[in-house]
């Protein structure tokens, strides 16, 4: 990150019973996903049952942290603390494991982002023991 690029607001999540394993993993630098033991579906976002087959037998595993940009936008006008860090990039990244996850693309010129660009996860510490998964151009 260049010196003149302000850091994005990095606010702590509010883990619940469904999502705590995800955030615990993120705090350790891992992007965790759930997998259905009964129908092999990869699940996003975290939940107690498989939305494809209603099974409650789900297993957490570590994803590769790699993906591609499915879509993105460069935000020029925003709200709250985000208005001070424009322009920044909000994106849907399609993970190699399948799910499309909303995130930021960071550490690059926003104009360098494009659909299908390969990206890799990075974790930004919130300062309260949690970390947010963002992505950089690979």
């Amino acid at each position, binding site marked *: 990150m260049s010196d003149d690029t302000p850091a994005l607001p990095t606010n702590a999540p509010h883990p619940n019973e469904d999502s705590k394993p995800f955030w615990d993993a993120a705090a350790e630098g891992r992007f965790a996903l759930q997998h259905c033991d009964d129908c092999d579906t990869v699940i996003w976002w975290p939940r107690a049952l498989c939305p494809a087959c209603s099974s409650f037998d789900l297993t957490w595993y570590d994803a590769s942290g790699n993906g591609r940009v499915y879509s993105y936008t460069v935000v020029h*006008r925003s709200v709250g603390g985000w208005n001070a860090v424009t322009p920044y990039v909000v994106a849907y990244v399609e993970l190699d494991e399948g799910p499309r996850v909303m995130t930021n693309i960071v550490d690059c010129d926003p104009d360098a982002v494009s659909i299908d660009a390969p990206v890799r996860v990075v974790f930004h510490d919130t300062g309260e023991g949690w970390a947010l998964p963002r992505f950089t151009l690979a």
Partner: protein
Amino acid sequence: MSIRGRAYIAGAYEHPGRHLPDQSLMEIHARVCVGALADAGLTMTDVDAYFGAGDSPGLGPLSMMEYLGIGATYMDSTELGGSAYLAHVNHAAAAIAAGKCRVALVSLAGKPRTGGRPPGGGGGSSAPEADFENLWGNTVVSAYAMAARRHMHEYGTTSEQLAAIKVAASVHAQHNPDAMLQDVVTVSEVIESPLIADPLHRLDCCVITDGGGAVVVVSPEVAADLERHCVPVLGAGEAPKHTNNGRIDLTHTGAVWSGPLAFAEAGVSRNDVDYVSIYDSFTITVLQTLEDLGFCEKGKGGGFVSDGMLQAPDGGLPFNTDGGGLCNNHPGNRGGMTKIIEAVRQLRGEANPAVQVPDCEVALAHGTGGSLAGRMGSVTLIMGREI
């Protein structure tokens, strides 16, 4: 069993105000409810069903029913964001067809221009998706911008084509003295307006207004006793569209499912539709919805909306003749109610004369509540001049 011809919209009223710092949210509800009932030739004592969405202050529909003095045999607080009111008409028609009520009142009010709640259609911090969508600085505009970007990538849609939608809305709004924005704009002016979230410009976005609206849905028996032209409900369809377990497709809306349901129930085809009210939170919302409703092939919306197709009275498919959310009014950041109201005006022949569609016999109103880049409630409502 269907709702076709089994319920009528007897009254419709849009608050003329766009900035209402001196009226409470409750007063705005009250004024549009009384206005819609007066339009129908009814009073509050005739009402036996009330429908209120998330903008109704208090406990579900109950607090506003108390405020308004409504006794009822039926009540509904379906919340879908801005499309809720179209669902309410569908639910009211079903309830009337089932004999549960005879006179249903549906109201919307909001004050985002005065201040208070920020614009948005989100699910709040307790929503299961909250931490996965709320921590990235994703605004309402940036969400729709991601949908626009993906549509451009897959189909070659351009900013100029999206701008043509705003131009058509502005051409209509110049005839509406209540409209927030009454100046006709050009494609260049849209594209040269500031980028809010690339590729969406300020003029790709709807207005932010205070205000509200209400409609009264009645049984055929009640309609027959009223002098007012009552507009029959021909059919309706509803569908959720969401992120689909992480496989979100940003290039379409839930109209791909709600549309066919509504057309089938109404017994009409796309070629029968004379006028459309299309939810227009952003230009991209209109473009995707027109494709999804089948008015053009998927991906061809950009070409379809160019060359004046949407402009009344001579375009092939006149839309949002009040100026829509893009220019006229988006009360409470919820555009569904005004979509119904302008469709009713067209079917009654009471739109602004410069934009009245000649011989308007079938009108379609479509709502997109929530977000194109998350979850939305899609509702399609088809109405006729007569049954």
